[in-house]
C-alpha cells in the first residue's frame, strides 16, 4: 500500500514530509512495528526557476518550420521571446517558463543561445520536462487563473511529500488503511492519534434499498444506505491529488469518495444508482454454475456455485461479492440518488473466488485479509461527510438497512492475559499495570486488576484471539529491539550422529578419488525412468509446472546420466560425478519408501573402476557386501554388472550402464556406475578396525599363475590361494591377467604375487615351498591348473 505522508499526517503529527530525517524516523518506526517499508519515494519536487507566464503572441519564422516564436509575459511587464517546438498553446494561455539559468532535472541549464541568430530568453516546458509524468507531446498548460510570475509548483499545488510503500503482512489487514497505520504508529512516535470523527449526518426522510441475504454464510453483513442530492462532478483538487498519488485515477466525486473511504478506513464499498437498480434493492446469493457477468474491467466471466453474486432486487447479478462490481452497475453523470453498499464478506470465500477466477481488486485484497466487520457506521458517515463537500444538498436517508446473519464474528471478543505468560515468552519483567499503556493506544482495551487482566480484542484485528496474540502486540509496542539478546546454555551435546559422520566421510572419500558432486533435479519426465531401464511404479506430482518435471525419481541414475550427456555435449568427456540424494519409490505405508541413495558415475571408465571405488568406500566406511554377478540390476550392462548383497538383500549395484540406456540418454562414452542405498549401508554402526602387528622379519615373494576358465571367477581363485597359503600370506596381488595364444581359448592366465612373512622368524626356502605345495593342492581340487 502506498502511503502519502502528508495524508497520514491528517491522523497525527508524524513528521514533516519535506524533511528527510523526519521521513526516516517514520520509516524506522514502521519497520520496528512490523509494518514493512519496501521503498520511499520523494514526490512533488519542483524545478526552481520555472514560473507561470502568459502567451502574448505567436510568430512563425520563415526559415524555421518546426519551431515557432513565442512572446510571453512572466509578470514583470517585460515581453520575452522564446523559441518553442510545441504548438499546443494559444494566445492568452498560461505556460510554465523556465527562466535563464534554470537547471532542468535532465541536467541541462537554460541558456540564452537561440537559433538563426535570434536569442531565446528561456524555455517553455512539457509535463515530462518538469517531472510531472510521461507526457512530452506539448507544453504543460497551467490553470488560467494562475498569477503570472509564481513558481509553477504553487500553481499546481505541488509540495514536497514522501510516498511510503508499505508491505502488508498477512495478520495486519488494518494496515491496508491510513487510519490503521496511524493508530499503530502514533504511540511508537509518541504523538496523538486523531482518527476522523465525521458528524452524524442529519436524518432525511425514510428511504430504503432492501437487502435479502440468501447465502448469509458468505456475506454475514450487508448495509445499504440511500443518499440523495448527489450531483456527479469532479472531486476537489486535494482529493484528486491524493488519489493520484495512491495510484488511483480520479473519476468523479462519488467514485473518488468511495475509493478515499476505502483507503482511509480499509472499508471497501460500492455506490449504485438507485434509480437504475432493478427492484430497488439487493439480493446476495451464490452464482449458479456457468452463470456469467461482465465485470467492471470489461471482461465477461463465468462463475460457479462457490462464487458470491450481489444481485439487484430482480435477481440480476450486478457484482461479484467482495471482488468487483459489474460493468452496468456504474453510476452515471445523471445519477442523483445512490444506494451505498458497505458489507463484510467471508475472507476464505473471497480468496477462493479470487484464485478460481484469477480476478483481483483493491476490495478483494482487503476482504481476503479481513475488513473490520463493525467498521461500517463510521465509514458511511465519513462517506457522507466527504461527498457533502461537493454535493451541498446531500441527504442521508433514514431507513438504512443493516442485514446480518449468525456468521458475523462477535463484536465483543476477550481474552485473559497473564503477566507471567507475557514475561515467560518475552523474557521481560513487566508488571500487569504496564499492559494498558502498551495495549490501549492500539485498541486492545485492558480491564481488571491483579496478575491476570481481561483484554478486549479490537474488531479490526481478526487474527487476534488468544493470549499469545496479545503477547505479540505487547512485544511489538515494547520493541523487539528492547527484549535483549542472550545465548541459551544448551544442555545438549552438539554433534553429528554416526550416520551423519559416515555420510560426510563417504563424500570425502569420493572427493579424494577425484569425483565431483552433482545435484540434478529430482523431478523427471514420465518416461525418463523407463528410458533408463528402471522398472517399477513411480509417484507423480498432481499439479506439476511442466510435464518434464512431473514424476519423482526412484533412482539417481537418470539425473546423473543427463549430467554426463550435458558435459559431453560441452566437450567435457570423462567426467566423474556422484550424488547423495533422496529417491522416492512408492510403498504401502503412510509415506512412500523414500530413502537416501549414493550413486557414482564414471564416464569413459569400465566396470572395474566402479569396483575400485566401492572397495575404497567400503573400507573407509567399515562396511562390506558380496559382489554377486549372478544378479544384475535392471538398466545395467548384463555381463559387466553385479549387485551388492548383504545377506539376502541387495543394497546396491556396481558395474556399467547398459549400452541401450546410454544410447537413450545420448551418452557417447561407457559409464561405470556404483549405487548404494545409503540408509541401509550405514544402518549398522562401523566396527573400528583392529590393529594387526606388522612383522619385523624379512618377507619373501612367491609368484603363481593359474589358467582359469572365463566362466570361473577370479574371486574363487583368490579365495583358494588365501586358504592354501594360510597365516604366512600377508599380501595378495593380481598383477597380470593374460588372454591370448599362449593359453587355451576361453581361458586366461591369472598371475598372483604372494607376499609371505612370519611374525616371529626369518622364512626359509622350505617355508616358501610348503606354501606353494599347499596352494597347489587347494587349487587343483578346484580344477584350476597352476602354470609352471
Amino acid at each position, binding site marked *: 500500500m502506498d502511503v502519502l505522508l502528508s495524508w497520514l499526517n491528517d491522523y497525527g503529527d508524524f513528521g514533516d514530509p519535506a524533511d528527510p530525517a523526519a521521513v526516516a524516523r517514520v520509516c524506522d518506526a514502521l519497520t520496528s512495528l*512490523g509494518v514493512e517499508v519496501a521503498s520511499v519515494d520523494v514526490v512533488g519536487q519542483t524545478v526552481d526557476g520555472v514560473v507561470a507566464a502568459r502567451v502574448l503572441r505567436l510568430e512563425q519564422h520563415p526559415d524555421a518550420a518546426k519551431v515557432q516564436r513565442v512572446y510571453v509575459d512572466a509578470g514583470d511587464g517585460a515581453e520575452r521571446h522564446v523559441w518553442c517546438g510545441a504548438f499546443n498553446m494559444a494566445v492568452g494561455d498560461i505556460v510554465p517558463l523556465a527562466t535563464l539559468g534554470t537547471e532542468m532535472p535532465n541536467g541541462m541549464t537554460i541558456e540564452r543561445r537561440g537559433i538563426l541568430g535570434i536569442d531565446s530568453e528561456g524555455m517553455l516546458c512539457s509535463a515530462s520536462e518538469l517531472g510531472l509524468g510521461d507526457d512530452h507531446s506539448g507544453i504543460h498548460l497551467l490553470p488560467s487563473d494562475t498569477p503570472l510570475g509564481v513558481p509553477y509548483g504553487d500553481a499546481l499545488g505541488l509540495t514536497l511529500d514522501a510516498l511510503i510503500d508499505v508491505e502488508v503482512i498477512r495478520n495486519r489487514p488494518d494496515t491496508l488503511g491510513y487510519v490503521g497505520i496511524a493508530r499503530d504508529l502514533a504511540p511508537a512516535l509518541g504523538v496523538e492519534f486523531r482518527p476522523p470523527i465525521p458528524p452524524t449526518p442529519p436524518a432525511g426522510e425514510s428511504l430504503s434499498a432492501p437487502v435479502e441475504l440468501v447465502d448469509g454464510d458468505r456475506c454475514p453483513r450487508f448495509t445499504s444506505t440511500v443518499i440523495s442530492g448527489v450531483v456527479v462532478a469532479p472531486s476537489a483538487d486535494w482529493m484528486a491529488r491524493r488519489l493520484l498519488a495512491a495510484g488511483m485515477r480520479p473519476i468523479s466525486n462519488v467514485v473518488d469518495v468511495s475509493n478515499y473511504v476505502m483507503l482511509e478506513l480499509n472499508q471497501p464499498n460500492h455506490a449504485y444508482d438507485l434509480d437504475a437498480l432493478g427492484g430497488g434493492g439487493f439480493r446476495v446469493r451464490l452464482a449458479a454454475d456457468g452463470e456469467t457477468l461482465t465485470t467492471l474491467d470489461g471482461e465477461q466471466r463465468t462463475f460457479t456455485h462457490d462464487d458470491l453474486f450481489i444481485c439487484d432486487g430482480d435477481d440480476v447479478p450486478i457484482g461479484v461479492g467482495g471482488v468487483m462490481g459489474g460493468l452496468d452497475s456504474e453510476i452515471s453523470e445523471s445519477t442523483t440518488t445512490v444506494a451505498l453498499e458497505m458489507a463484510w464478506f467471508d475472507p476464505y470465500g473471497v480468496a477462493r473466488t479470487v484464485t478460481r477466477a484469477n480476478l483481483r481488486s483493491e476490495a478483494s485484497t482487503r476482504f481476503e485479509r479481513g475488513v473490520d466487520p463493525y467498521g461500517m457506521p463510521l465509514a458511511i458517515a465519513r462517506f457522507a461527510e466527504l461527498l457533502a463537500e461537493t454535493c451541498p444538498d446531500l441527504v442521508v436517508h433514514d431507513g438504512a438497512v443493516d442485514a446480518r446473519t449468525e456468521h458475523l464474528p462477535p463484536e465483543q471478543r476477550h481474552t485473559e492475559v497473564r503477566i507471567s505468560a507475557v514475561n515467560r515468552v518475552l523474557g521481560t519483567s513487566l508488571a500487569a499495570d504496564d499492559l494498558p499503556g502498551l495495549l490501549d493506544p492500539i485498541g486492545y482495551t485492558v480491564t481488571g486488576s491483579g496478575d491476570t487482566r481481561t483484554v478486549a480484542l479490537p474488531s479490526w484485528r481478526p487474527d487476534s484471539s488468544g493470549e*499469545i496474540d496479545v503477547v505479540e502486540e505487547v512485544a511489538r509496542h515494547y520493541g*523487539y529491539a528492547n*527484549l535483549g539478546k542472550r545465548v541459551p546454555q544448551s544442555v545438549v551435546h552438539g554433534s553429528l550422529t554416526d550416520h551423519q559422520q559416515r555420510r560426510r566421510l563417504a563424500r570425502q572419500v569420493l572427493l579424494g*578419488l577425484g569425483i565431483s*558432486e552433482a545435484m540434478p533435479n*529430482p523431478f523427471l519426465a514420465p518416461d525418463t525412468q523407463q528410458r533408463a531401464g528402471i522398472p517399477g511404479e513411480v509417484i507423480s*506430482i498432481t499439479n506439476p509446472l511442466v510435464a518434464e518435471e512431473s514424476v519423482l525419481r526412484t533412482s539417481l541414475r537418470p539425473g546423473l546420466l543427463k549430467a554426463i550427456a550435458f558435459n559431453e555435449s560441452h566437450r567435457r568427456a570423462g567426467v566423474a560425478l556422484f550424488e547423495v540424494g533422496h529417491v*522416492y519409490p512408492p510403498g504401502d*505405508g503412510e509415506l512412500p519408501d523414500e530413502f537416501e541413495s549414493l550413486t557414482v558415475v564414471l564416464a569413459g571408465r569400465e566396470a572395474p573402476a566402479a569396483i575400485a571405488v566401492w572397495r575404497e568406500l567400503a573400507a573407509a566406511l567399515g562396511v562390506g557386501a558380496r559382489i554377486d554377478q549372478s544378479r544384475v540390476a535392471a538398466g545395467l550392462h548384463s555381463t559387466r554388472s553385479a549387485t551388492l548383497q548383504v545377506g539376502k538383500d541387495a543394497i546396491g549395484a556396481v558395474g556399467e550402464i547398459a549400452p541401450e540406456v546410454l544410447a537413450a540418454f545420448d551418452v557417447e562414452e561407457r559409464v561405470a556406475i556404483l549405487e548404494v542405498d545409503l540408509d541401509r549401508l550405514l544402518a549398522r554402526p562401523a566396527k573400528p578396525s583392529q590393529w594387526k602387528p606388522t612383522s619385523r622379519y624379512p618377507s619373501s615373494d612367491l609368484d603363481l599363475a593359474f589358467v582359469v576358465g572365463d566362466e570361473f571367477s577370479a574371486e574363487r581363485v583368490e579365495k583358494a590361494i588365501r586358504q592354501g597359503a594360510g597365516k604366512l600370506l600377508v599380501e595378495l596381488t593380481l598383477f597380470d591377467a593374460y588372454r591370448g595364444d599362449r593359453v587355451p581359448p576361453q581361458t586366461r592366465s591369472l598371475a598372483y604375487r604372494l607376499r609371505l612373512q612370519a611374525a616371529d622368524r626369518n622364512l626359509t626356502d622350505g617355508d616358501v615351498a610348503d606354501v606353494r605345495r599347499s596352494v597347489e593342492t587347494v587349487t587343483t581340487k578346484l580344477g584350476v591348473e597352476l602354470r609352471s
Partner: protein
Amino acid sequence: MINEIEAARNAALAEIAALGDVEAVSTATARLTGKKSALSGLKKGLGALESIDDKKAAGQAINAALAAVNTALDDRRAELNAAALADRVEHERLDLTEFVAAPTRGHAHLVTQAWERLEDLFIGLGFQIAEGPEVETDWHNFEALNMGEGHPARGEFDTLFLDYAPPGGQPGSTLLRTHTSPVQIRTMLAGKPPIYIVAPGRVFRRDTADATHMPVFHQIEGLVVDRHITMADLAGTIEAFTKAFFGSEFTSRLRPYHFPFTEPSAEFDIQRPDGSWIELGGCGMVHPDVLRAGGIDPEEWSGFAFGFGIDRMAKERHGVDDLREMFSNDIRFLEQF
C-alpha cells in the same frame, strides 16, 4: 731414506690429485696405501738403517706420509662425490611451470559446502542435526504447524501435491514438503525436551526456476525447546550465528512479522559493516498450538524456531548471479569451487 719417502709421498699425492672418479679413488687406495704400495715397500729398508734414531725417524716419516696419502684419498673422494652430486642435481633441473594442470580432486557441491559449514557452526553452539522425509503428510507440513484446512497462509506455499495415497488415507494428503518445519514436529514427537536441533534439508515449491528461485531448494531450520526459553534467547542465538558465520563486525535484528507457526514472529536481518541490511530469514517463539501438536505442554516448556535458505548463502558467498547455474551440473562450474 727420508728423500725416498718424500719422493714416494709426492708421487702418490700427485697421482691422487689426478684421479678422475670415485671408482678410481677406490682402486688407488689399495695401490697407494696397501702392503704393496711404494711407501709400505720402504718399510723393508728400515732394517738396513744403522742408528735407532734414524730408524725411528724414517718409520715416523713413512707413517706420516701414509697418513697424508690417506687424507688426500679421503679428500679426493669427498671432492669427487660432491662434484658428482652437483652434476646430477644440475642435470635434473626442471621448469616447474612446464606441465598441464589436470584436476585430480573432486569438488563438493556449493550447497553441500554451505550446508556443512552451517551444520558445524550450530554444532559448536550445542545443536544436533535432525533430518526428515522430503515427501510429507499434509498434517506434518501444515496442520500441525497451525495451518489447518483452508488456512489462507497455505496458499503462499505453492505446494506440489503427489498422487500417493496411503492405504485408507485421503488422496491429496501427501505432498513435497514446502519447508523444513515438519522436522520440528517429528523431532518433538520422537523425543522429549530439551531439544536443540537444526534441520537442514531439501524443500519444494511450485515455482518457475529463475535467477533467484528454484522449485527445488534447501533450507536450514532451528528449533530449541527448553525451560525458560525467551525471545531474548532467540535474538541472542541469531546474533551468535551472525557473528560466527559472517564475522564479528556483523550484527542482527529481529523485525515483527507473521508466521502461523510462531508467535511472536519475526524476520531477521543481518547488518553489514557498511550499515546496509540483508533480509535473511524468519523466526519466532514456537506457537503454543505447535508445541501441543508436538506433544509438549506449552505451560511447562517454551521454545523458538528459525529458518533460512542455504542456497542463497552459497550464491552470495561465491558471487553466483543465477541460481540455475548452481544446479546445471556443468563440470566447468563444479570445478571452480
